[in-house]
């Protein structure tokens, strides 16, 4: 089964050799083991060419071993379950896994765009901005080809079958990163009794220790890791999240972690209902945070440094120790610091020939240099690898002596054949989360990296991420950070000894930001800084020549740090080259801003369970089941689902609405108006309070009286409307619009609590308590009488705009004689639990009157026939009551919210848009709602617009279409002709009329 894995070492590694498995890459089948990543398995199979670069289509291979990998970007899976843009270094190998390179169209090996590489000089920074700009109309064409050639992953075009969930969590200490420092910090905090969450993005805890070789307390370091993890697992208040990437550090110590969940069984076989969670998004609120995410090794910037086979030294060590993969047979190691010497030792130990260590430092390494010498590995101190040969695979390194002068040209005097070039340019602490949290960064000149500086939130950094690069320092720093965290929480830190390590002191790193080439920096072969975005030294220099100075501008111009990279691999090299080009110190140039997400996060994880039926709450009235059974299509109003119409015998909307309208006008209809907001207002100051917020004279209402009321914002604009009923001297009942229910209550409370706390008023929402059944039509009184009502309903005993409590069919109700249809009507308020019973009884008794249930659409037509507005449809937040012709509602005797604004000059303009009715001259056209109104046809664009249509319906009662509109100065223009101009249609001639189309005197509702 292992056949073909030519680079697999016969022994060792943390792979499970008892579980061989097969996977495919670009359609070809390969063998690997459980415990492999996609990257390690591909390396084991000798697959070195993995894709093409973003812009220049250059062949690329695996560079790194984790989140910093720039090239091995994969599309994993097929069809709906396909996941684009995963890093092969982070994809766990699974049986049957199918991966494709996302970069490289039409194929990885034959790339039509490779010719672009030859035009590299033309395709410099800003090329797209400069070239594909004109003519503007062509941009869509350019975009199509550029996007296709760029070869990003393909988003699946059918619903994601995977299941995701969100989980909220709280802890005392969140530790991000489970390497030596993170484990030490977590142990310290947990032993002190803190609630701890430890998250690590890898499959196993251990961090850098997984890459092997280290010893702690005289034993393999992974033994210590196993012990620490076992202890933490035993603690009840400690949660360990492996495969959990902390990707966002937000305000107030709120962090987001995406956890890839282990799929024990075949997910599809479980069926959709029992499908296990694929990814879990943790939303963590932590009291303290310890960031221990380690450091990223930097590549070195030399000519053709992007050739497959040029890899980070630490990644090479990781593949050898963790995956038992030897990525090359004959290696050159190129470094400016001591760490890569260990890689040379690892390579030699794994059986590779290490042709040379090329060390840019004249003095070479510290104590480890001796060990290398003992192994017989030649060291070329004071030398650099200036160029490499080979195209699809590195074939040799061109080596030059270097004096230390940054931009000088050098002469290649030695060429060494190799198929692997392991490079190390030093380490950059992963300061991403620290920086996301608002923490400052400080340049450390001795270690040549940005270190986390002052924190803005209660967090701390530890380990390599804090610039502690030796194992001993990491453990000590983890302990320190753990202790600091528990002390800040007021807990007693436990006594813990720092485990012993056996490291020798290292010689200092020496700056080598850009390796000198045989030609000057602008003419030499490409020296890549950001592999993923094809950003080179020459690009940064070009940006500077073209006037860019600010690091954020240079980033955007050159694409440095875009994509999944987000500055992990090339950022610091880029800043340093920019600084050198500008002749400024690095800290003065600074870094770009780090933002979430640290690594790509699937949209599915962001959405969590909020998909399908759970996307948004569906609010249902107590009568919903009846409506559903009656086959009513639903209209979504806010979160409510309301019946739109009740079709009979296959009627369409138009036919059903016409029938429902005529039933209300001629006999009686019934509507579920339960979604209206309802507020109980009580207290000795109730009148005083309502006088201040409503525009009409509240005090004049006697108990038992109803009034139409509007609420204005302080800007004088209509905010909401409804019915106000005075139930007693000190008690009122308000209704609000369906959409305004919650906001109006909050708004009233705001005035009461912030401005008038002295008023003795209680507000209680009764929206859910009461259902509202609107019974409308000339037969509505007869219907209620027939049903059995214990109070007289005649016009004299119970006049229009009054409220009564009563027993209807033996059930306690409040009856409101209000009308939104212009007909004799009663709104019945009844406890929601009883509403279905009452509705059924009404329907039974109502047969005699052909009682017709009607929906929101009919309600809209009926009210439009009367010229009644719907706030939010006929108004839009810029409409005053004067614009609506509601001056009669505005009390002259008192102040009310918004009153002063009505006297502002803008509100007094004669040409404000005012509510009018419209009739089409042709008499049969329903004008589309939203259509703009113009004075005359045949004008050249841009045509001045004088208003727009807000409501438009066919009126069955009148036999012709009607519309409401807001028209500049409209009220004074009755009888004039305008044109409605719906896009793409012939203008429609319309006449301005009164908005009250039906029964303008209002006689029908008063009967």
């Amino acid at each position, binding site marked *: 089964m292992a056949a073909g894995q030519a680079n697999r070492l016969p022994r060792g590694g943390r792979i499970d050799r008892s579980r061989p498995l097969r996977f495919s890459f670009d359609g070809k089948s390969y063998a690997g083991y459980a415990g492999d990543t996609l990257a390690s398995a591909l390396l084991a199979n000798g697959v070195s060419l993995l894709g093409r670069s973003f812009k220049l289509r250059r062949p690329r291979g695996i560079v790194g071993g984790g989140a910093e990998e720039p090239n091995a970007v994969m599309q994993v899976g097929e069809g709906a379950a396909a996941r684009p843009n995963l890093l092969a270094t982070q994809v766990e190998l699974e049986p049957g896994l199918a991966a494709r390179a996302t970069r490289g169209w039409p194929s990885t090996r034959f790339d039509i765009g490779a010719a672009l590489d030859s035009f590299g000089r033309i395709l410099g920074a800003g090329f797209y901005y400069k070239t594909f700009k004109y003519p503007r109309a062509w941009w869509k064409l350019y975009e199509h080809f550029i996007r296709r050639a760029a070869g990003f992953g393909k988003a699946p075009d059918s619903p994601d079958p995977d299941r995701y969930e*969100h989980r909220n969590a709280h802890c005392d200490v969140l530790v991000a990163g489970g390497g030596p420092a993170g484990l030490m910090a977590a142990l310290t905090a947990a032993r002190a009794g803190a609630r701890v969450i430890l998250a690590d993005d890898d499959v196993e805890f251990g961090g850098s220790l997984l890459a092997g070789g280290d010893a702690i307390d005289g034993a393999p370091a992974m033994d210590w890791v196993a012990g620490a993890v076992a202890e933490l697992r035993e603690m009840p208040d400690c949660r360990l999240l492996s495969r959990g990437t902390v990707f966002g550090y937000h305000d107030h110590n709120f962090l987001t972690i995406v956890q890839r969940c282990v799929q024990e069984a075949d997910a599809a076989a479980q069926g959709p209902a029992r499908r296990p969670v694929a990814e879990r998004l943790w*939303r963590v609120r932590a009291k303290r945070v310890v960031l221990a995410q380690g450091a990223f090794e930097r590549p070195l910037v030399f000519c053709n440094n992007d050739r497959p086979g040029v890899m980070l030294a630490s990644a090479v060590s990781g593949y050898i120790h963790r995956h038992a993969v030897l990525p090359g047979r004959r290696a050159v190691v190129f470094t400016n610091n001591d760490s890569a010497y260990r890689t040379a030792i690892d390579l030699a130990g794994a059986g590779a020939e290490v042709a040379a260590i090329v060390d840019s430092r004249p003095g070479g390494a510290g104590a480890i240099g001796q060990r290398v010498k003992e192994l017989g590995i030649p060291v070329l101190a004071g030398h650099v690898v200036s160029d490499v040969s080979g195209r699809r695979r590195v074939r040799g390194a061109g080596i030059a002596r270097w004096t230390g002068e940054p931009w000088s040209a050098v002469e290649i005097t030695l060429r060494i054949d190799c198929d692997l070039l392991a490079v190390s340019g030093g380490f950059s602490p992963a300061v991403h989360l620290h920086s996301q949290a608002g923490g400052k960064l400080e340049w450390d000149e001795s270690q040549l990296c940005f270190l986390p500086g002052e924190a803005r939130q209660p967090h701390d950094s530890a380990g390599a991420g804090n610039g502690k690069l030796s194992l001993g320092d990491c453990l000590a720093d983890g302990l320190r950070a753990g202790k600091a965290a528990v002390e800040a929480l007021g807990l007693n830190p436990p006594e813990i000894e720092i485990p012993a390590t056996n490291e020798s002191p290292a010689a200092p790193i020496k700056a080598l930001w850009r390796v000198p080439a045989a030609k000057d920096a602008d003419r030499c072969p490409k020296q890549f800084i950001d592999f993923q975005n094809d950003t080179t030294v020459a690009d940064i220099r070009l940006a500077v020549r073209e006037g860019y100075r600010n690091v954020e501008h240079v980033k955007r111009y050159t694409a440095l740090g875009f994509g999944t990279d987000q500055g992990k691999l090339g950022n610091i090299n880029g800043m340093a080259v920019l600084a050198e080009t500008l002749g400024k110190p690095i800290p003065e140039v600074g870094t770009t801003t780090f933002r979430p997400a640290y690594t790509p996060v699937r949209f599915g994880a962001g959405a969590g369970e909020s998909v399908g039926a759970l996307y948004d709450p569906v609010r249902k009235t107590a009568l919903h089941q009846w409506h559903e059974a009656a086959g009513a299509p639903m209209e979504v109003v806010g979160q409510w689902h309301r019946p739109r119409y009740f079709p009979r015998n296959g009627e369409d909307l138009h036919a059903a609405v016409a029938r429902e309208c005529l039933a209300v006008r001629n006999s009686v209809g019934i509507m579920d108006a339960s979604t209206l907001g309802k507020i109980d207002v009580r207290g000795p100051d109730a009148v005083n309070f309502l006088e201040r917020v409503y525009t009409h004279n509240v005090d004049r209402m006697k108990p038992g009286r109803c009034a139409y009321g509007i609420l204005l914002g302080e800007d004088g604009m209509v905010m909401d409307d409804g019915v106000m009923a005075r139930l007693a001297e000190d008690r009122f009942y308000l209704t609000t619009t369906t959409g305004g229910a919650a906001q109006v209550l909050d708004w009233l409370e705001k005035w009461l609590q912030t401005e008038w706390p002295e008023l003795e008023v209680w507000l209680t929402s009764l929206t859910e308590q009461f259902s509202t059944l609107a019974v409308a039509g000339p037969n509505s009184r007869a219907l209620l009488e027939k049903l059995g009502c214990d109070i007289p309903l005649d016009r004299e005993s119970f006049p229009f705009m009054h409220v009564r409590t009563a027993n209807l069919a033996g059930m306690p109700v409040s009856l409101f004689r209000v009308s939104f249809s212009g007909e004799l009507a009663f709104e019945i308020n009844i406890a929601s639990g009883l509403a*279905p019973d009452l509705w059924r009884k009404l329907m039974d008794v109502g047969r005699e009157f052909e009682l017709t249930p009607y929906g929101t659409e009919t309600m809209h037509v009926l009210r439009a026939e009367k010229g009644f507005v719907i706030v939010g449809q006929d108004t839009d937040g810029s409409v005053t009551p004067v614009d609506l012709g509601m001056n009669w509602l505005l009390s002259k005797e008192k102040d009310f919210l918004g009153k002063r604004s009505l006297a502002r000059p803008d509100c007094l303009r004669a040409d404000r848009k005012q509510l009018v009715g419209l009739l089409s001259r042709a008499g049969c056209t329903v004008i589309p709602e939203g259509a703009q109104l113009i004075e005359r046809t045949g004008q050249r664009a841009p045509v001045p617009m004088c208003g727009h249509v807000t409501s438009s319906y066919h009126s069955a009662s009148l036999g012709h279409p009607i519309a409401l509109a807001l028209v500049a100065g409209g009220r004074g223009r009755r009888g004039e002709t305008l044109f409605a101009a719906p896009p793409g249609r012939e203008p429609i001639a319309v006449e301005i009329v009164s908005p009250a189309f039906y029964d303008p005197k209002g006689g029908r509702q008063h009967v």
Partner: protein
Amino acid sequence: MSERIARPHGLEAFFGAAESASRDGVEIALLKNRGFLNLRLDPRRERTVKAAEEVLGQDLPLAANSFSGGKRRVYWLGPDEWLLETGAEEAGALRGELEAALAGHHAAVNDVSGGQATLRLGGPEARTMLSKGCTLDLHPREFAPGQCARTGLARATVLLACIDEAPTFTLIVARSFADYLCRWLANAARP
């Protein structure tokens, strides 16, 4: 007035046609025949508090986010607002008694029995289930028996109360959201 809440469909995925079920470490039950009164008064007015407490026969919980047990549960909703949970048949009479006792006081009593749906949640995984949609810290030390909170659960506002250490929770939600919330619970109950 008897309270008749239409059974939310949402729980069918969890317990079919039954009224409760226990699965995967979660127990969910729909509680019927509950009555609710909303009470508003200013707790700084001792006479008013006393008048209410005499009718109730128990203390009004004055500590934020707590509830008092006894004959009926009285949940703190806000510094001047409580929710009284009673049997459905009792709510009307209790409202009358309270209104009578509080006449002349600055107080408001509203029967809100028709506006709520009540669920009982329990089982070893109940906290896990709730944490999928609730940002409260539900750790047993932080949200202990006797505590309640009006808070968000998924996209609904709920009153959540911790009844005992088992743990058992009571969840009270506005009637119109019940179907959605039950659907959400049935989904969140999956391991």
